[in-house]
């Protein structure tokens, strides 16, 4: 009798202990929702690189690719929240409303929405990258290397994110070459190799000898390679798709942020926040500079990269004028995040009007 009592007492202790251990070392599972295929070599590809970093850090991950921003997004999110995922990264703007809706139903699951602005529930965070810092680097290179003084820029949608990029690029280019003009073609797509190619061709026909892009496919750098003009890679290092044309790329480096946030969930230290990281935090990375870039430009670019990272230089430092010559940012001042977030006017030197 006595023995049985002790044995059951011990075994229940062991049982309790395993339970506690299981609770503490509970595997945190992260899920990622992608707008495109993981093989797009642009936006989604880079998010998936970030996911792999989370795996490498020892966490389980799941992803669903090609989730349209239609009514389907909500179902995928709910299914992920329902199947044991502790944190869900939704990596496209169009998932904003479904993310907040599903977050309300699953208060114990954390949601991280990329590029959006709605955080309606305490378990929703948003994050984005200061890509405009990378575009200041591209502008510096473009301004130094253009011969025709016409720089082409394939843009996606007239939203502040894209306008900001165009402005940052143009301001930096003007700093090294006051005569440049930036010509914009709006492709009205994030990913459509056909449309992007047409846009790039149109810009080359208009005399652009360097093409920048704010769309995700590799079509533009390939067109540039054929036409013998320079280009910049978007989202991932696109050098291998057009070794001669690509001068450098601005890479989206989500890995460090993803690992940090998943760790925070595991440690119970996750809190709601709005993250906007740039070169300094490593979310925006400049790929290796091409050998075609002369050494003086190279030195200038390296210095700018350091100064942007340390905060010594801000990409939007006054005086900045809009197209009509009105002062946007006064001499010596820098644009604050509020102004950057709502930026909907071109700076001087950009040709054409913002479509609306």
């Amino acid at each position: 009798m006595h023995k049985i009592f002790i044995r059951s007492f011990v075994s229940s202790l062991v049982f309790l202990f395993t339970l506690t251990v299981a609770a503490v070392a509970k595997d945190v599972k992260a899920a990622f929702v992608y707008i495109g295929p993981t093989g797009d070599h642009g936006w989604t590809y880079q998010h998936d690189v970030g996911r792999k970093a989370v795996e490498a850090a020892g966490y389980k991950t799941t992803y669903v690719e090609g989730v349209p921003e239609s009514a389907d997004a909500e179902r995928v999110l709910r299914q992920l929240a329902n199947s044991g995922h502790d944190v869900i990264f939704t990596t496209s703007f169009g998932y904003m409303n479904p993310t907040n809706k599903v977050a309300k139903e699953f208060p114990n699951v954390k949601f991280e929405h990329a590029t959006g602005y709605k955080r309606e529930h305490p378990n929703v965070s948003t994050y984005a990258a200061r890509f405009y810092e990378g575009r200041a680097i591209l502008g510096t290179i473009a301004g130094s290397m253009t011969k025709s003084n016409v720089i082409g820029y394939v843009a996606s949608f007239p939203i502040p994110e894209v306008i900001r990029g165009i402005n940052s690029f143009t301001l930096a280019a003007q700093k090294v070459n006051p005569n440049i003009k930036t010509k914009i073609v709006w492709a009205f797509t994030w990913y459509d190799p056909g449309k992007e190619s047409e846009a790039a061709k149109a810009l080359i026909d208009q005399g652009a000898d360097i093409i920048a892009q704010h769309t995700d496919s590799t079509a533009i750098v390939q067109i540039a390679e054929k036409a013998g003009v320079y280009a910049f890679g978007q989202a991932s290092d696109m050098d291998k798709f057009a070794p001669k044309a690509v001068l450098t790329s601005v890479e989206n480096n989500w890995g460090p942020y993803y690992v940090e946030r998943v760790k925070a969930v595991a440690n119970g230290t996750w809190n709601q926040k709005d993250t906007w990281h740039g070169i300094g935090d490593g979310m925006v990375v400049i790929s290796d500079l091409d050998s075609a870039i002369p050494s003086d430009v190279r030195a200038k670019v390296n210095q700018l990269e350091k100064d942007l990272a340390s905060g010594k230089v801000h990409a939007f430092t006054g005086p900045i004028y809009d197209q009509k010559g009105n002062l946007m940012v006064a001499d010596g001042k820098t644009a604050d995040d509020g102004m950057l977030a709502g930026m909907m006017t071109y700076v001087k030197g950009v040709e054409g009007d913002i479509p609306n």
Partner: protein
Amino acid sequence: MIKIVKRDQPSRTIFFLTPVLAIILTLFAGGLIFYILGFKPFEALKFFFIVPIADMYGFSELLLKATPLCLIAIGLSFCFKSNNWNIGAEGQLTFGAIVSGGVALLFYNQEGFYILPIVILAGAIGGMLYASIPAILKTYFNTNEILVSLMLVYVSKLILDYLVVGPWSNPEGFNFPETRQFSESARLPILFEGLRIHAGIFLALAAVVVSWFIFYKTYLGFQMKVSGFSLKTAKYAGYKGKKMIILVFLISGACAGLAGVGEITGPIGQLHREVSPDYGFTAIIVAFLGRLHPVGIIFASLIVAITYLGAETAQIFMQIPKYTGQVFQGMILFFLLASDYLLFFKIKFKGSKK
């Protein structure tokens, strides 16, 4: 020895059996593909076709997904039965969504029982207007309706892009390409608390009943059938061909427009760039898989709907690429067209009696 003999007359039994055969062949080929990709075929098929609808929520999502497919396919069957090749249901859906979304935005922040009926009607009218373009061009200018209706799909998507990026974009939305959220009075009511299935399913069911009645109980249905078999016969019988062409396109457009209304006033609640994941094109598969029969279309829409849901589940639980869902849709259509061969030919083994 196997011999292939032409049938005197297409077999009616085979006509309704081939869709079933196509589905079986698709499952078999799908399993084979999973096996080649290195997944356990039965487990993969289970996650594809059973797990997604194993609970009440999953089943309601299936109905939600099947609703627009069924509605559009019913509309398309009017066209296809009468030899009118409307490939542009996606455009009619988009335009219907644009018109009804525009009306819903007019009533922004307003409440009232009359709002929803107006919004629904606007969607149907939008779809009809858009479908009338290929219909009128076909009847009066003898253009090819396949090309016209298809090209208009891209036009409608560009119009939608323009509106949500520009004049209709949410003023508080930092210029992102989306409109405001519609007011509650412009939303289709949800049928069960916690699920997304909405009153739009009744529109689809009504379309099924009405179309069955028209097909099999009215003179119009008979005219459509005759025109489908032979345009010359229809002409000889003195049918007013032009009127019928326009009518079937209008019906088809109204159905597609209503499907668009269901999406934006149901689960989405606003207009943005991706109102439909190509329901208008997928519904063509649904219409043919359902043999252009209203009841067949119900089953076909459920089967095709599950390929969407299954693809998501299979990726979440087994890391199977989600695009296999499209492979399944393609295979169903392929096997259906292939097995249609049996409609007109039969396989005879040597020695068997005639």
